[in-house]
């Protein structure tokens, strides 16, 4: 509309190309600065928001977070094809990058569909179509993070996380150990194995504790230590070599503590084990009561 004013064209031409050039340069600088600041702000915000919170898990087959953020166009097709409404898109204000898909195990865990519809739906490759076997997914890693509240660690047989695990007896096993408090019971401790855990989160969802779960699925980066590559595991080396690498070793006695009286249980050739005294269970510490119950 400004151009429609009544300034005659020649007058405008004579007021100078110099001032119009100057005006152009000034405007261009201002515009470039403003646009640059806006884009810089977006970039910085993006970088800050790129730190995914530990409770937010990406769908199966998701690329590593950095690559994922360059590949995911936030279309929501994965979330639409999730039959259990596990996946949701982050809204502005949620912790994960706006519009990207994620799920929270304590809310709705992944049901590990065999046909992995979310991965199939992804049009860009943010979810890797190379993942065709859901047991190979690594959305995170379950960690029995709180030994103080876990019922199995208290000596009970809760076992719920173990029972609901879709990869039961591989991803979570119950490892028997001595219960030093009662001194006569076993504790069966849920133990996660990273070779098999897909990070689906069903254990975290099912944990019976009222609020926070004792077992949680964490991003692999948080859940795992780096492997100590310089430490060579003797038993692995031995197995690989098919025998000891340094030959049979001479067993030296510990001076002053030799012999069976000091607990040497090794048997010489031809020797039979000594008769063991019948085991008497220890009385519970502190109480004067002893029910004489034996396992």
């Amino acid at each position, binding site marked *: *509309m400004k*151009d*429609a004013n009544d300034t005659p064209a020649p007058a405008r031409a004579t007021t100078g190309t110099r001032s119009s050039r100057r005006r152009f340069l000034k*405007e*261009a600088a*201002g*515009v*470039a600065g*403003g*646009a*640059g600041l*806006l*884009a*810089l702000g*977006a*970039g910085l*915000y*993006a*970088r800050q*928001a*790129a730190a995914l919170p530990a409770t937010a898990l990406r769908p199966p087959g998701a690329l590593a977070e*950095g*690559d994922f*953020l*360059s*590949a*995911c*166009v*936030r*279309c*929501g*097709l994965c*979330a*639409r*094809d999730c039959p259990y409404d596990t996946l*949701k*898109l*982050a*809204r*502005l*204000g*949620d912790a994960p*990058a*706006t*519009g990207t898909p994620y799920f929270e195990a304590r809310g709705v865990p992944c049901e590990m569909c065999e046909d992995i519809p979310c991965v199939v*739906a*992804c*049009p*860009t*490759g*943010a979810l890797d*179509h190379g993942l065709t076997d859901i047991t190979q997914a690594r959305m995170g890693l379950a960690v029995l993070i709180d030994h103080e509240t876990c019922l199995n660690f208290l000596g009970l047989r809760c076992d719920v996380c173990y029972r609901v695990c879709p990869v039961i007896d591989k991803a979570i096993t119950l490892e028997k150990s001595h219960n030093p408090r009662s001194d006569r019971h076993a504790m069966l401790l849920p133990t996660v194995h990273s070779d098999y855990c897909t990070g689906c989160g069903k254990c975290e969802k099912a944990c019976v504790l009222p609020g926070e779960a004792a077992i949680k699925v964490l991003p692999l980066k948080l859940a795992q230590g780096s492997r100590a590559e310089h430490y060579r595991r003797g038993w692995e080396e031995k197995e690989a070599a098919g025998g000891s690498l340094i030959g049979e070793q001479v067993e030296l006695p510990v001076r002053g503590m030799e012999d069976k009286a000091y607990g040497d249980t090794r048997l010489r050739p031809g020797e039979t084990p000594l008769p063991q005294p019948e085991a008497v269970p220890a009385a519970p510490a502190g109480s004067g009561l002893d029910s004489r119950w034996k396992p």
Partner: protein
Amino acid sequence: MSTPRAPAADPVVSAQSAASARPALPRSSVRGAAQLGLAARPGVEAVAAKGWLRAHKWLLLRRLSQLGVLALFLVGPWFGCWVVKGNLTSSLTLGVLPLSDPFVLAQSLAAGHLPYRQALIGGGIVFAFYLAFGGRLFCSWVCPMNLVTDAAAWLRRRLGLKGGKAPAAASRYWLLGFVLLAAALSGSLAWEWLNPVSMLHRALLFGFGLAWGLVGGVFLYDLLIAPRGWCGHLCPQGAFYSLLGRASLLGVSAARRRDCNDCMDCFAVCPEPQVIRPALKAAGQDHPLILDGDCTRCGRCIDVCGKSVFRITTRFNRSES
């Protein structure tokens, strides 16, 4: 407002000054109202001349298109009847037709990721469509943000808000460059963190969160600070589609510009008023066709012109009639 009122009996402003050859101006038109010091009501003359329906034809078609596209996406999540899945950045129609936003794919490429074939095919289809028919058809016929900024522009006209400072016209192209640069440097779709366009559409389908604030911010910015500030000056997505629409087949032509009575109503309603003058007033070009890539082909100028100066035509039809 304490504006002096013209005598009620006077139906038109007679253009007293040198323009005696010009036809008389309706007092509701932008220029007519300015001469009388009244608040302008662009389009009233067109309603009187052509009837309400014909004076709103393109506007109604456009709203139908915008809401129709939105409805196609919404009947899935609302009624479980899936026509289109996904959202405007990438979608799948009836399980077979992929469509993707080439602007987002360009960011993804800049960030160093080559998308799968499905997204590339979808992006190619959309790219080819807008290349052929005019990139900014997206802005005026599809983009949900257009409803917001049109509402702001309408309210601005009705409230008679004048002034405000819009950023320079080239801002959006700079921003487009910086958006791609930010994607390349951060290795992520940095702009998509706060792109109000994709965010509004996604929010309508998947839930808003704080996105209301961003949409409200754009509305208030357009209403109070910068006239047509977002769509016309800042939006890098619109800039992308402007570049795409440079050689489109469809365009608006001021074919009957001889009849123009300089009422300025088309300038008042046009979201990119700078594109009209070369065609209407033969400034820098002979033919009456609007070739500027910024033209959104919204057709609102056709609606509000009481003299039926404009029409939609192809880029090869440069005749006057």
